[in-house]
């Protein structure tokens, strides 16, 4: 069992600072560093792996401080976003590289275990440039694991993969967590990856931790504008928008005194049906197709709401009226920018 603990870790990249971060990663669990581009996820991961110096803090592996050790002594399997495969070595040689370095007896046989595990036997004599993206991801994973790392650190594991390869890799990563018990620390900008794989998540924005905890708690995390957008909430209304909307559908009373800076309307707070008259009418101002159905823009008063219609066919058009009801008990307050 491996236990990795980060204490007050701060990493500087040029003039950009990431942290402080406290984190514990245990065997058999996956932790995801989540955030948009430029949030500092990669810098933090590179700091943990030993490729960026820590400004402060400690990285402990089973209680032993490793933050002063060079990358080759930390025992982490670090997979960069481009995978870092060796183009001049065949797949077999890539996988056996860490074993060859150490002069491990039976290196070839040991490498073969991982080659078979990741279904690479037929590709073993090929060079990386001859492989597809998904195959290269599997080679990178096999090579990292052949080195018997104490933890796997992977920067954007699912980037640039088609849906099928993505599903295969997710399955392999889940198996890896369950069967091998190797702790995973993954970086991604995609919340869906976090939900698919992680037990814990750290959300970074501009180098600061905005949320940290179990992935199941993420949808209920306090929302600022960044977190709300990042988690896919589309109906966000600032204090100014609500005050300017007059007596609209949303409760302006919430915004008095030291109240929230805005309101998030989760989609499950909205219900709508086709109607041409009656109360709570809204009008369709745009209709567009998305992979899982239609996205409608419904304007009610001065406010526009986005709603999804999962049906394949849609009989409504721009300009049609609908009845839009709002469950006020499901509204969520929007905290000030930067607050977590």
């Amino acid at each position, binding site marked *: 069992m491996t236990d990795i603990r980060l204490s007050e870790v701060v990493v500087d990249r040029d003039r950009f600072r990431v942290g402080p971060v406290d984190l514990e990663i245990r065997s058999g669990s996956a932790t995801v560093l989540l955030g948009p581009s430029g949030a500092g996820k990669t810098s933090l991961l590179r700091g943990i792996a030993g490729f960026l110096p820590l400004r402060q803090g400690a990285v402990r592996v089973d209680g032993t401080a490793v933050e002063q050790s060079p990358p*080759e002594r930390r025992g982490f399997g670090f997979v960069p976003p*481009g995978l870092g495969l060796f183009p001049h070595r065949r797949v077999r040689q890539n996988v056996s590289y860490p074993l060859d370095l*150490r002069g491990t007896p039976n290196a070839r046989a040991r490498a073969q275990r991982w080659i078979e595990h990741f279904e690479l036997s037929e590709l073993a004599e090929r060079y990386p440039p001859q492989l597809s993206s998904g195959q290269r991801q599997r080679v990178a994973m096999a090579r990292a694991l052949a080195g018997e790392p104490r933890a796997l650190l992977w920067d954007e594991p699912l980037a640039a993969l088609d849906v099928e390869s993505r599903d295969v890799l997710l399955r392999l990563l889940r198996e890896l967590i369950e069967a091998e018990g190797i702790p995973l620390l993954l970086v991604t900008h995609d919340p869906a990856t976090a939900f698919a794989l992680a037990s814990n998540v750290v959300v970074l924005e501009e180098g600061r931790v905005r949320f940290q905890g179990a992935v199941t708690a993420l949808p209920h995390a306090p929302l600022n504008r960044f977190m709300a957008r990042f988690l896919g909430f589309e109906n966000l209304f600032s204090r100014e928008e609500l005050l300017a909307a007059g007596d609209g559908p949303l409760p302006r009373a919430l915004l008095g005194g030291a109240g929230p800076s805005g309101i998030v309307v989760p989609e499950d707070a909205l219900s709508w049906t086709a109607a041409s008259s009656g109360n709570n009418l809204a009008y369709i101002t745009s209709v567009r197709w998305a992979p899982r159905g239609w996205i409608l823009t419904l304007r009610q008063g001065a406010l526009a709401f986005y709603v999804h219609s999962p049906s394949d066919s849609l009989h409504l058009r721009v300009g049609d009226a609908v009845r839009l009801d709002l469950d006020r008990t499901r509204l969520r307050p929007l905290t000030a920018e930067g607050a977590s």
Partner: protein
Amino acid sequence: MTSDTVGDRGAPARRALGAVLATSLIGLFVLPIVALFLYAGYGNVATAAGSAGFRTALSFTLLASGIAVCFGILLGVPLGYILARYRFPGRSIVESIVLVPVMIPHLIVGIALLVLFAPTNPFGAWVAGLGIPIFDAIWGVVLVMVYVGASYIVLTSELAFRSVDGEAIEAARSLGASPIEAFATVTLPQAFRGIVTGSLLMWARGVSEVGGFLILAYAIYPSFPYGGPVTNTASVYIYNLYSTTGVQAAAGASALLVLVALAVFVVVRLFDRTGMAWTKVGWFA
């Protein structure tokens, strides 16, 4: 829409013009060599090959150019690596300096080296004091060859090191490689082809040099490691043949020198093809 799409009436004419221009340049490269071999004929080439003087000049040139390339690799590859990997104040100045030998006429290189290494100045006196003969000796030839050719090794190795994936180096480190092991197992193998190309260019440039040798090392007297009779470099020997005997004898020796150069080129390319199969696939094909 590309120029090859249907309806682009000018495309065939542009393609024809491009083909004519490209063929003209290839013709300019090849025709003089063909003319040289046709003019020299087998007899003159055989005469040159049978000439003890030319054989000595040729073997001396191969020895000196081999030593020069070793120095070029020793000094040029680290500089190429530094320029590829590090940012430092004055880097662009260093890059410009690397190009200076390519731009200066090589007769002037000979004169400049003559002035620098003259025993009448302190630096020249110091070098002479070390017991390293420069004038009319193999080390003068090596010096000129390194001066006029090492830039090619620096430039090609810089490009080669630049093209090595930095993430592959980081992955190697994370997998347990020390910086030296990562250099030896990841960086160098990937940059090797560029270094070989640079070495070949430097060798070819050194062998074809004349101007610098005329000034610094016209006649070569024996000194370690060259222990043969007094000779010239092959290029100077051919120049002498042309000046004294005429174009026919010079053409025979020239054709032989071209054959030797082609043989070296072919051997290096064969090594390149068999030893570096990975460069023939995917990203590198």
